[in-house]
């Protein structure tokens, strides 16, 4: 009974993100087919789609790996340019736009991943602030170089004569689904645990045999790949593609999405990316001119507030209060689950309150030592041999 309930909860958490994205996509298709979906809304949802990809992939680096990358827009830039070059060429060979775009996605993603590898290989041994500034520097270098290449259109930007139709949102959301699936699956495996272990304590991770450099590189390259994918999608609806769009402010916009959604929280990234992109679009279209600058004010306040909220000691009472309310609400909503976990939360909460030095649960250790050393010995032998 308990076990099945546990499994159900696990699954909802696991598949919730797919359901969310698929539901939105389905709704959009239905609206589109019935002719309600406006072109501008389709474009907005395309933007939301690739923003989700950007936020979720950056979350892999910032939230799960615990390193700050400020060059995410740079990888997006690579994806946009390479994707556009690819599709411009492919349209001369292949008729079907769907196939062209899919191939462009693959090529653009791989190109961005290669850049990620190229950049990550030497730099990932740097830590924290240094890595952040180096990724920023690389992002800017990529941009500067793109701007000064004739075959990339120079300062005017790269022309993209074959913009994809408004159905691009379908590709954007499907790509977002794939992104979420890959990163979720990765995180719920031994590789993902290793990545999170590095975030929590690099020295201990090493001592446990986790190959830190390898896993940092894995996280970085996968994130770059998906940033490239997002760039390709962006590049299919914009012409000309200008390198100015990918300055480091854009990287910070993506960071705001990750921070608002919660570091290491994929659902949070999806929601925050959708919300902020939507606000962004409406701010630009409805409040004209100077109102746009309130966007950066809002973003700045989000960044500062969210970090203080999660880290500052003086926020602790408020945080506990909100979390308490939230648990109450959840319990009221899912009574069955509440009954199951009733015993647990108060116990941890009580432990939480006492700072250090809790007497080691006397029962447990004395209990184990005599009993298990007789009864459990054989079983553990197997365990040990498996481990070594």
């Amino acid at each position, binding site marked *: 009974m308990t076990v099945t309930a546990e499994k159900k909860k696990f699954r909802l958490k696991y598949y919730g993100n797919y359901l969310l994205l698929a539901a939105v996509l389905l709704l959009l298709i239905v609206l589109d087919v019935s002719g309600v979906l406006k072109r501008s809304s389709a474009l907005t949802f395309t933007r939301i789609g690739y923003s989700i990809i950007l936020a979720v992939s950056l979350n892999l680096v910032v939230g799960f790996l615990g390193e700050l990358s400020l060059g995410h827009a740079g990888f997006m830039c690579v994806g946009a340019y390479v994707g556009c070059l690819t599709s411009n060429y492919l349209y001369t060979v292949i008729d079907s736009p769907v196939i062209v775009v899919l191939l462009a996605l693959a090529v653009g993603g791989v190109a961005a991943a290669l850049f990620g590898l190229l950049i990550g290989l030497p730099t990932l041994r740097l830590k924290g602030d240094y890595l952040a*500034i180096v990724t920023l520097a690389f992002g800017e270098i990529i941009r500067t170089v793109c701007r000064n290449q004739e075959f990339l259109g120079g300062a005017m930007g790269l022309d993209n004569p074959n913009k994809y139709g408004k159905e691009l949102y379908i590709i954007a959301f499907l790509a977002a689904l794939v992104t979420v699936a890959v990163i979720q699956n990765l995180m719920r495996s031994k590789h993902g645990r290793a990545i999170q272990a590095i975030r929590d304590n690099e020295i201990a991770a090493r001592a446990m045999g986790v190959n830190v450099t390898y896993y940092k590189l894995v996280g970085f390259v996968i994130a770059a790949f998906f940033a490239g994918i997002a760039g390709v999608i962006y590049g299919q609806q914009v012409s000309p593609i200008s390198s100015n769009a990918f300055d480091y402010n854009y990287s910070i916009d993506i960071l705001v999405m990750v921070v608002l959604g919660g570091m290491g929280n994929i659902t949070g990234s999806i929601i925050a990316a959708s919300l902020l992109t939507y606000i962004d679009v409406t701010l630009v279209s409805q409040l004209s001119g100077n109102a746009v600058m309130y966007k950066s004010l809002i*973003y700045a306040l989000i960044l500062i507030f969210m970090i203080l909220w999660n880290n500052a000691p003086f926020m602790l009472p408020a945080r506990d209060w909100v979390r308490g309310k939230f648990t109450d609400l959840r319990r009221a909503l899912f009574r069955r689950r509440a009954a199951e976990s009733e015993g647990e939360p108060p116990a941890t909460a009580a432990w939480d309150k006492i700072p250090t030095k809790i007497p080691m649960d006397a029962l447990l250790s004395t209990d184990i030592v005599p009993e298990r050393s007789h009864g459990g010995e054989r079983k553990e032998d197997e365990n040990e041999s498996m481990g070594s």
Partner: protein
Amino acid sequence: MDTLILGLCYGGIYALIALGYTMVYGIAKMLNFAHGDIIMAGAYAIFVVLSAQGHVILALLAAIVVCTALGLLSERLAYRPLRSASPLAVLITAIGVSYLLQSLAQIFFDSQKRPVTVLPPESVPMFGTTVSVASLWTLALCTVIMVVLTLFIKKTRVGCAMLAVSEDRGAAQLMGINVNFIIALTFAIGSALAAFASLFYLMQTSVVEPTLGAMPGIKAFTAAVIGGIGSIPGAMVGGILLGVIETFSSSSPALSPYTTAIEFGLLIVILLVRPVGLFGKKRREKV
């Protein structure tokens, strides 16, 4: 020769900004991403005073007050509550503060570029060429400031306390040093230096805009890294080196579009070859 003097001027400016970075990094162990935007705020303060026909000295004082106040305020409100949080959290907050200052400048002054004339464009003949008065002031004042700062840190009790906090915050606290005060003081000094930097920067560029601080900020950070972050002479040398490289690169037609790329490339190479910079000390995390 022209290029070299211009390079030294920019170098002096970058060195002043880099000092702010390096002192804060050395003592508070954080990368103050908003430092560049403090310069922008100082530039606007100068702009306002000069537009009201104020004297340059008055403008400089206004910039110092504004910069120091902003530096202290951001430290108190945003960074101090995060003293025990992860470096990642602090860095993101600093990015937030940077964004906040930029957007506030946009809201108060809109995002237009505005011309400012700090000093009339006069030049004096020297070394077989002409050198602008502004450049001479910049070079002279930068030198004086750096000497004074070095003496302050080496010779005064407070300077000693700053060094102690940068070595070992916990031990310094045990020795009766008020760590919060020292960190706040560091922010104040760094920001005051930024005010000078904003004046000199305006002398060279003569334009203010809300994003004015971003590029010199990042470049000065590069300079601080080149010199070895946490090292005061390192910041000076790194700043001057970067300034000279920048002006030489942008005065060459072939390289000029890639100037930024070259500077950042230099940053990356330094970090990879010698992560502690030219003058930095190696630190090891204790196990």
